[in-house]
């Protein structure tokens, strides 16, 4: 008994194509907001209580001729300020000025990073992503005895990462979410989660394949049998992440959200991208012979 999921595979591809198109559009149109992890700069979080605080902070930075790239006010008179990398002397001068405004001025967080180090981190992250992809490609291909499975799993992974990047391009444009080291960690986790899920379905295809059947019927049966598990499993991870997004600290909310987007996309792609791709690639491989 199996549901004929694969009959509608053109719709799954269309839905994926739509999501990918939106992602690509946003990446090309809006780009990303890079955090100081990759561009270099200073992030400064502090509490300062005085009237017209935002305006006065801006003046102080102007006096030091520091360009203010953003200044956000949080709860309890706390401010998050972003600017070029501050030198120790510039910082000391600014602190003195802040303390004149409010003797109870308190520093919560201070990060500064030179631009060359930022570029280096970005390069390393990209190397890690490609290394992961290659390792997993070989792993899947060797486990399932065929490059079709490996390539399909990798394509599904790329699909998920592209959607994750697209989502963060949109979040960046509308809600000022930034790409940082943690985000790239989330991308790598999404990659591994996506493959994790895909492998379970492929594993079922391999197991059922011992009885001879058409590949499409095989895929239908494998998907029917694994879909409940896939959804249930994703639900548990989604519960954990949703709790983190809603209840976690603000500094880490975007990281949890990135993982959440990755999980949802990974769940969809393992069933509705990775499996139809196997069918599509298989018919591509066969058609020249016919």
């Amino acid at each position, binding site marked *: 008994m199996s549901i004929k999921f694969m009959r509608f595979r053109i719709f799954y591809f269309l839905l994926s194509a739509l999501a990918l198109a939106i992602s690509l559009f946003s990446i090309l149109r809006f780009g990303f907001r890079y955090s100081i992890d990759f561009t270099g700069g200073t992030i400064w979080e502090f509490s300062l209580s005085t009237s017209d605080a935002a305006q006065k902070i801006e003046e102080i930075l102007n006096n030091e001729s520091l360009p203010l790239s953003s200044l956000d006010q949080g709860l309890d008179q706390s401010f998050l300020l972003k600017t070029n990398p501050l030198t120790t002397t510039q910082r000391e001068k600014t602190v003195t000025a802040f303390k004149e405004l409010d003797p109870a001025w308190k520093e919560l967080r201070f990060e500064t990073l030179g631009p060359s180090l930022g570029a280096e981190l970005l390069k390393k992250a990209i190397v890690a992503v490609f290394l992961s992809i290659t390792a997993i490609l070989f792993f899947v291909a060797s486990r399932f005895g065929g490059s079709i499975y490996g390539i399909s799993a990798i394509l599904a992974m790329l699909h998920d990462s592209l959607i994750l990047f697209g989502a963060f391009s949109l979040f960046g444009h509308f809600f000022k979410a930034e790409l940082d080291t943690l985000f790239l960690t989330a991308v790598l986790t999404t990659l591994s989660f996506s493959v*994790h899920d895909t*492998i379970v379905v492929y594993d079922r295809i391999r197991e059922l394949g011992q009885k001879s059947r058409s590949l499409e019927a095989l895929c239908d049966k494998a998907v029917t049998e694994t879909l409940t598990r896939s959804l249930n499993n994703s639900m548990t991870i989604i519960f954990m992440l949703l709790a983190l997004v809603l209840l976690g600290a603000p500094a880490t909310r975007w990281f949890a959200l990135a993982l959440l987007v990755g999980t949802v996309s990974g769940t969809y792609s393992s069933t509705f991208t990775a499996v139809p791709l196997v069918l599509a690639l298989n018919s591509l491989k066969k058609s020249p012979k016919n």
Partner: protein
Amino acid sequence: MRFKPKNLFWLIFFVTILSLLIDMPRQLPLNFRLGSFSFSQTLYRPRFALGPLALPRDLDLKYGLDLAGGAHLMFVADTAGLSDQDKESALQSLKENIERRVNLFGVTESTVQSSHQADQDRLIVELPGVVNVSEAVNLIGQTASLEFRQEANLPPEATATATLDDLFAIPTGLTGAHLLRSQVEFSPNTGEPQVGLEFNREGAEIFQKITEASVGKRVAIFLDNQLLTAPTVNEVIGDGRAIISGQFDTKTARAMVAQLNAGALPLSLELIQQRQIGPTLGQDTVQKGMRAGLVGLGLVSLFMILNYGFFGFIASLSLFIYGAITLALYKLIPVTLTFPGIVGFLLSVGMAVDSNILIFERFKEEIRAAQPWAVALEQAFGRAWDSIRDANLATLITGFILFNPLNWSFLSTSGLVRGFAVTLILGIFISLFTGIVVTRTLLRLFAAKPFKIKVFSKEKTKNI
């Protein structure tokens, strides 16, 4: 490797209790009141010691800088124009000198690491807790200054109250710039370790004058205005080669040489990264993260019980055991907990549950295929294993790339990324144990006979 379920159960029971004991905070005050009955008692974590074999861990959870608050500073040392050999000893001296300065600053558990990345020689200093970072940066960033001073002629009654600066008040003009290098040597007569100094030509001339004036007196060597040593001059030295002897073993001689070289090969430092987290922000992150984690775990347990009934309850129980063992291992290894580390842990909870979901779904299928209950139970575990193994292996691959165990310089060595990878990798291994061994043992013992569960009976009628 075949254990009887009953023995395995006791093993699991023992491991769980032990983990819970390790997990306990040092003191756990228990207070409650029920009508006229009130209970007040403080539980103490037992000390794990077997006679002289005490556990070399304090069993407190270690928090990273992002959670505990503190400063992370990265400096680049300017090593241009030094030969490879000099560079190595200069960097070693620099590191030791900075460790000394940081210790002067009175920060406990600070670390100084050197690393060579992207053709730069870097020094990473981590200072936990609250410190005046600007002051620390200035202190660490200073170029080392080595200075030789002569003993002043103090009247005997003043000697008792004199400070080191009074005692060695005469500047000589001889500095680290005149010192070519210092190295450990061994006395040809006694074989004892001694410290050799080699001055350049100008230095040799100044040193000759100093020694001419100071035979029988002491010459002091100051590093960063701190007295290193003050040996007595035995004879006039004209060739610029001096030896300090008589008070060293190999270890102290090496330490002295490192400090002298810090002045002889001074490196200037440039601060390229600074990350500083106030203690309140970190606490906020921990508290909110813990709360979110507990709510998430509660939701997952509820979901599993609603979905799988008694089986779901067993899964929640093994999830609890998973949490207890994980926390105990964090304390034993010890793992320094960072925020991404906590997320890695929560994510691995998802994977731990996944093993169980895979098994339970398999079990349902076997029951649908009209297998007897006990056979279905065993087959579910056997057949789900392939998927569980392959899926977890794929995650492990990514985990190891993130952890970068061989310190490959083209990959990240960032503490935050590693923190995530460590908890994820540990989580995978522990979840394989609890998701399979623990769940299977509990089910073999408590669900060996069929019983009616709403979910299962509904599926059965649908399919048969």
